């Protein structure tokens, strides 16, 4: 009979390989594949613990991680060839945000010398 530790070591190996892929791949799809491997390793761990401890929670959570991973791939793949553009924001909204920041940060201590809102501003139509 295989012990629990054999499954855990196998999962750790797959996790390390996936981490290697995430660290070394240079495009989004390659990194996504590495993340898939890491999540897969976690699933092996969950099922192994559930089986050896006779606990149902691990199996149910494996179902949940599989579903969430599929959703993540769906959204992630859409992003790979079309990165989200900065959304144009109405200048009145930006002015409102500046006034909120002035209330909480009157001396300009946070993010000094920068105006992160400037890049997204468009003149109100």
């Amino acid at each position, binding site marked *: 009979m295989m012990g*629990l530790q054999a499954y855990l070591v196998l999962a750790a190996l797959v996790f390390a390989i996936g981490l290697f892929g995430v660290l070394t791949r240079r495009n989004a799809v390659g990194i996504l*594949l590495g993340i898939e491997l890491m999540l897969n390793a976690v699933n092996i761990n969950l099922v192994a613990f559930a089986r050896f401890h006779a606990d149902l929670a691990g199996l149910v959570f494996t179902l949940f991680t599989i579903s969430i991973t*599929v959703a993540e*791939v769906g959204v992630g793949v859409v992003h790979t060839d079309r990165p989200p553009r900065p959304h144009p924001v109405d200048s009145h909204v930006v002015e409102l945000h500046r006034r909120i920041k002035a209330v909480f940060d009157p001396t300009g201590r946070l993010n000094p010398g920068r105006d992160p809102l400037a890049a997204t501003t468009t003149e109100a139509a």
Partner: protein
Amino acid sequence: MTLETVGFALVAAVLLASSLAVVLTPNLFHAVLYLAAALVSTGVVFLLLDQPFLFAVQLLLYAGGVVTIVVFAIMLTERLVGQRIAQTSRHLVNGAVVAAAVFVGIVGFLVQGPAAAPRPAQTVDVTVAIGHALVGPFAVTLELLGALLVVALLGALYFARSEE
């Protein structure tokens, strides 16, 4: 050497080899096909752990869904770009060192732990038990998952919409 040990060794070899191929092959399309092999062998690991229902879910959702989506994305992107996407990796040594360190850390933790208890006998039908758990103690989690899937669907629609 029982039959289960032989099966585990075989599946582990296939899983590790295809996982390594996923992160090392320069052709992105081949990487996805190797990922399909890795996912199917993970499903076989589930079978070795007496979970036929999870094996079916793994094949349907992961090997079926994820691989199809990624293959479509790559083929569409290649047609848009008009050239085969090769991917070169960078910092191979650094990545290998970090990954090996994580693995050694996990195994070191495992070695320190107490020896695992032997596998208890499977008494109930797990598929039935999972069904009862999903509408019983995990009903709220299931609803939250449904909400998450709707949000993901809407997000994908939002980003996939055509430009006005």
